[in-house]
């Protein structure tokens, strides 16, 4: 058993806007690139050019169709990575202490030199956010780019996770969710940000902004219809209207 800290100084995490995510996978591959080259073992790929390519990814985008009772079906793109839970079951289940939650920022990390690859943490994570690297035999997970966000070799503007830096639609936001005045906390407040599966009691730090209501232009027809009152029913009348209107211009 590994202990979680009583509290953390900050709660660094991601806010992901499901209203804006177009499902382009930019974050998935940027993450793969950075984390292959950086923290710990590279993210390997098995059968890379074969029948069942299967690599380690710390972040994946899933797409779900939603069929409302009325109206058109919708497609929701849902990026998912470690949510850096406050009550992270993956930490407490770890038999070696390799999994831990950092006191200073709440990031959940795996100390690869202590990891025996037993997989208990992945089993305990209700979000499926951990992947055992098949080449290295160690558990891999989102580090929130702990080697970027404080990295003095990077310009200050780039000290954000690679997925946030690369997201073309600006659907990913990074900050301290423990600080109610942070931009991310305000965004969560404004847009009704949600926990993923709160019933699991993990208290995830990452938040999701729900999609805005869709397909309602027809409901506004009462406001819009008066704008479309005909000025004439046929071309001749239209030209009469035109003459009058041009006089006024």
């Amino acid at each position, binding site marked *: 058993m590994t202990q979680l800290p009583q509290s953390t100084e900050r709660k660094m995490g991601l806010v992901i806007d499901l209203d804006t995510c177009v499902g382009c996978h930019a974050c998935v591959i940027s993450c793969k690139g950075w984390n292959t080259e950086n923290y710990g073992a590279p993210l390997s790929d098995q059968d890379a050019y074969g029948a069942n390519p299967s690599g380690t990814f710390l972040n994946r985008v899933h797409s779900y169709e939603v069929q409302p009772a009325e109206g058109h079906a919708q497609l929701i793109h849902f990026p998912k990575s470690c949510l850096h839970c406050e009550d992270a079951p993956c930490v407490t289940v770890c038999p070696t202490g390799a999994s*831990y939650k950092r006191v200073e920022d709440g990031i959940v990390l795996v100390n690869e030199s202590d990891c025996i690859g037993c997989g208990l943490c992945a089993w305990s994570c209700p979000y499926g956010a951990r992947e055992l690297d098949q080449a290295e035999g160690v558990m891999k997970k989102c580090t929130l780019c702990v080697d970027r966000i404080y990295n003095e070799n990077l310009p200050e503007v780039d000290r954000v996770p690679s997925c946030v830096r690369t997201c073309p639609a600006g659907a990913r936001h990074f900050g301290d969710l423990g600080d109610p005045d942070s931009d991310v906390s305000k965004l969560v407040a404004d847009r009704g940000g949600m926990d993923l599966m709160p019933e699991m009691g993990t208290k995830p730090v990452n938040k999701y902004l729900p999609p805005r209501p869709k397909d309602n232009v027809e409901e506004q027809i009462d406001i819009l219809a008066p704008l479309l009152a005909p000025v004439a029913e046929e071309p001749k009348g239209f030209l009469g209207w*035109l003459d009058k209107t041009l006089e006024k211009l």
Partner: protein
Amino acid sequence: MNQPIINTSPKVSDEVRKTTCYMCACRCGINVHMKDGKVAYIEGNRDHPVNKGVLCAKGSAGIMQVNAPSRLRAPLKRVGPRGSGEFEEISWDEALEIAVGWLKPIREDNPEKLAFFTGRDQSQSFTSFWAQNFGTCNYAAHGGFCSVNMAAGGIYTMGGAFWEFGQPDWDHTKLFMLFGVAEDHDSNPIKMGIGKIKARGARVIGVNPIRSGYNAVADDWVGITPGTDGLFILSMIHVLMKAGKIDLDYLSRYTNAPVLIDASEGPTKGLFLRDADGKPLVIDRNTGELTAFDKPGVRPDLSATYEKDGVTHRPVFHLMAERYLSDEYAPEKVAQQCGIPAKRIRAIAGELARVAFDEAFELDQEWTDFRGEKHTKMIGRPVAMHSMRGVSAHANGFQTCRALHVLQILLGTVEVPGGFRFKPPYPKPVEAHPTPHCKVTPNSPLDGPHLGFVQGPEHLALKEDGSPARIDKAFTWENPMSSHGLMHMVISNAHAGDPYKIDTLFMYMANMSWNSTMNTKGVMEMLTDKDENGDYVIPHIIYSDAYSSEMVAYADLILPDTTYLERHDCISLLDRPICEAEAAADAIRWPVIEPDRDVRGFQSVLIDLANRLELPGFTKEDGSAKWVDYADYIVNHERKPGIGPLAGFRGENGDKEGRGEVNPDQLNRYIENGGFYVAHIPEGADYYKPWNTAYQDWAVGMGIYDSPQPYLFQLYSEPMRKFQLAAEGHGERQPPEHLRERIKETLDPMPIWYETDQHGNEGFTVNALTQRPMAMYHSWGTQNAWLRQLHGRNPLYVPTKLMREHGLQDGDWAKVTSPHGEITVPVMEMAALNENTVWTWNAIGKRKGAWALQEDAPEATKGFLLNHLIHELLPPKGDGLRWANSDPITGQAAWFDLKVKIEKAAAPSDSESQPEFAPIKSPVGKGPKDLAWKVGK
């Protein structure tokens, strides 16, 4: 707590080299992080005008493209039969001498026997220059099978189009309407724009049969019936005109709505009334007099007519009112055909009107128009639109694109704040573009540029006997306004000897024996077919590619290209620019790593070939070569004195932009600047560009124009009317009888909608489409080890209703039949889809043996191409003629006109998609089993 101490400030890289991405056609700036001389990590360049730091999945996966096992390694000479993939590696010298051995006699005898077509070419101003100097008329890139309708529709209507030509005013727009765009064109800027406007809470309306990608985040989704966008748009035009919700002031000043149309019977009927200088005439509302449209102070009258000799000449706007107020376009009339309830059409038209007029705003910015009138403000109409292939790839696509632009223009939303804005070198009127040239002379250059914009029958590319001059029959009566050529017809026509036979087919980055062609199986047969003497019908095929694509096996000689990080390139203002609405911009690629194989950049190889052939434009008067390689050309070539491929850092000291002497240090200056150059448009010149004297003067200074080119938007297209007049029997150049009626009907000078040719489609009622996934759009790399894990499979997506009707469940197999062929493929249900449309991801399916994939890769077993169902010709009509499956105006390949039927099928015995093809022998072997790619220690 006792927690490990970790290094949170590791060294990121030894060096950052800034160049331009080539994972698609978006051309973003990238920072390539190097460790120990190797590529360690790629991220977006924050300073770059296109992507401003962001980067898509393709861009970040570039590292897997640069190390791909499918990279070709050396020049190859075919040793087995065509299509087998049996090659031997040869030296560059031998390869180039083989090529010269084929090309030199062609040039001396009849240069048209060389057909040189480039696919995803980003150096068209150079490759066309090469072809022009070779002397063949047979050159084009892939625009004809991609999106020529959109490009030509835009240029003929408003002097610019979407994507590379212009962009929404993302900072001001409040309503963004997206027609038929799949997940592409262009990539990052649209995502950035959508993100930006959504953050402001602005509305996005997506019109697309498939609700994926951008349509998934659209606030309102219109799951239209494919091919009916034009009808939907004309219906909204009907509603808006009828309600008077159009910008009359804008129409009178900046469009040809007030231009008078000749109503007298005879050869000028339907053309503009013009003065002695050829200027279109309007009635001046101040004086009531007939006046040239651009006379200082004139206020063109949208309503007044002109009487002469008992004939009443009316302005374009009268003709528009007559046509579009007709009940034919009422929402109730079009609703069923478009698959959109009438109420919804009205609501969307109402929302367009509300935002364009009720949310109009003003910028306090003075400007002066081309008539000399000073304006104190710029009026914003915050409605922006965008469209690309979805609308384009139908045989009624050109008219639909025109209709879309007319809708934008009626609302007064083009080149105004909040609307759609051009990017330099656009706006540019049709008249400022070249016309096509096709006069071939042995041992001489062609008489001018191949491609261009015809303004009437006099510009068609016809031989003296009236037969097509070009192998693809571009610029003929079959498709007069085919500005990008018809790449999809080249192999078919060359094989048929229609209009003539060729000797050598030379292609670059065009997978014509697989996903880049219609009728894939048929094309493979054409490429391998032999004549009665046992010789190949297409005698020689030269192909250049960086990778072991399916096309490699079908060539006789392979000239292996480099990857994009190993080469010089220029993204030029002379070509397909990367500008922004506020700035002109261009960029380079440079070798951030050197090739570790015996490969060469294709453009440098072309220069070597040109030098061996002593092509005129490449040779000095003393007979020596002008340039040794492409980098040399980029710096030292001048199109006109002072104007070269790159606009930045010109002049002796590198301090001139646009125009200036050659600067030998130019490439270094680009590299120091991050690989690109930006020239900002001055404030006050950045809206109303076609009419804004400040913009026009800036553009002249930049070398974009030689003199100011103000013009009117062409709601009414006079060139189209000229083709109709010919079809009506006027003029010397006359169309063949069998095309007269079609020309009269389709080349209407004002946008129309027509149903595409349904001959042969009886019993085929389901629309079938493809799109590329965002993570692969326009990319040359499904084999990419990371990206194939995202999109390695492509089921046929079937709407819920059709799944139920046919008793299908996910994982079942279906036989899909078209008038041309059949495929048997796995299906998957999709609810967010037009109920009568099926679709799949394009180009996931791969041929066994290609791309260094294992033969049991899902791309090669389950993956499939819809291309097998699409023929390059329409079903025979019994008249003995070959009718291209193309837009009758532009020749655009009509991919999305496909109609199919589906039925449940038993799983094929080997559980592989049908048809199957024998594996081709890989010239590069197969990729490694596992990867763990870390270059740093």
